[in-house]
């Protein structure tokens, strides 16, 4: 496959960025999007040109670091996939692909396609945990959990904090991320004792970081590689009102 790539290049957070166009040959349809970019970088290095900076780590869709905005879609046009699991067979030979970094005030560009997503970490640090004394693990069956709740808690706990929800949202809102983190604790008995402080602290931190508010458009849900559901946000709202 032959591709024309238009990629955002930016030296650092303060520099003015621009699009650079690259022609890339020899892309195999079975390559992942990240492997395709690695091929591009190898070619650029061999030519003595500067490679494109992009984040990637696990290559199995669980670390959340490979986010990029591909042809108008966070993580590309295929639903339920991270960029590293997006296969090149979803693109046509000769296609032009425009790749941009996540755009949001709390996600400043570090270099090219890499953004600083630590604003999400700060929200998590504000309350996304349970305070338990360390020690031996208690007997698992000592604390009964409703099956329905445990399934829903698990579904929200699969959030990898990649920031695609923020990137997709017209308001750059982090509500889907925060709602997943709130839900995974709110649905389980271990999370209940600190439920009120947690939701207050995480929402306050979300606002402080400069994320927008939720317009319930559903863009986040449609682009989430882990398919976190929108009704988690309704639960987050409920938890917040209960904590007032």
């Amino acid at each position: 496959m032959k591709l024309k790539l238009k990629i955002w290049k930016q030296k650092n957070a303060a520099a003015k960025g621009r699009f650079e166009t690259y022609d890339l040959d020899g892309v195999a349809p079975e390559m992942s999007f990240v492997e395709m970019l690695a091929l591009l970088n190898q070619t650029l290095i061999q030519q003595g040109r500067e490679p494109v900076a992009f984040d990637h780590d696990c290559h199995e869709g669980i670390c959340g670091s490979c986010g990029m905005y591909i042809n108008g879609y966070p993580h590309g046009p295929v639903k339920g996939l991270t960029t590293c699991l997006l296969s090149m067979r979803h693109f046509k030979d000769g296609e032009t692909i425009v790749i941009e970094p996540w755009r949001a005030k709390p996600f400043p560009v570090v270099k090219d396609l890499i953004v600083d997503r630590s604003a999400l970490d700060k929200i998590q640090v504000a309350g996304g945990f349970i305070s338990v004394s360390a020690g031996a693990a208690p007997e698992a069956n000592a604390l009964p959990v409703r099956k329905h709740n445990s399934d829903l808690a698990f579904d929200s706990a699969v959030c990898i904090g990649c920031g695609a929800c923020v990137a997709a949202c017209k308001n750059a809102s982090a509500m889907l991320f925060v709602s997943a983190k709130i839900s995974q604790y709110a649905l389980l008995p271990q999370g209940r004792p600190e439920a009120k402080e947690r939701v207050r602290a995480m929402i306050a931190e979300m606002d402080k970081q400069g994320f927008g508010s939720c317009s319930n458009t559903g863009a986040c849900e449609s682009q989430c590689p882990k398919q976190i559901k929108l009704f988690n946000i309704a639960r987050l709202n409920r938890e917040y009102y209960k904590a007032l």
Partner: protein
Amino acid sequence: MNKILFSAVSKKFVMALAGLFLLLFLPVHLGINLMLLKSDPEPFNSAAHFMATFPLIKVVEVLLFLTILIHITYGIFLQIQNWLSRPVGYKVRNKSETGAFSRFMIWTGGSVLIFLVIHFFNFYFIKLGLVEGDPENFYSVAWQLFSIPGYAILYWICFLLLGFHLYHALQSAFQTLGLSNEFWKPVIRAISLIYAIAVPVGFAIIPLVIWLF
């Protein structure tokens, strides 16, 4: 405490409550407007008179104006904040799938606001004595306005846009108030659709009937 009262979630909560109150008001207004279809002006005029003079309605009217003001102010404030959350936009248009009309609430809402200003000028200002007209005969004022083709067309466009606004508004308000889950979401969506069609069509039918008969 301030952090809680003015958090993004709290502001949305206030907007949703105000919006739902306005959703209750519309069918009442529609019910009275449908009396315009009678050839006898008396029922409509006496209903308008009742709405303008009954003390309890006066209290509700103040509440209504306050609600409109809150809904608009919060809406604009949140929108500006949301725009500021993405100072550098994307080059390629965002193609993420979204709910119908949900991305255009500020614009459909803005159109409704423009209509509201015109509507106040045509009716409420007569009641206040700022514009010439007989406040006891809104029936003939309405009939005169609807017989102007340009006004009727503007009226239809505004109610079409109001319909777009209402379809997202109702389901969004339930989501914001935390009253939605996997089971209720399709039910709320269906109610939103029925409401968003029935109310604007009810209003839009009046100039049509006046034109045809």
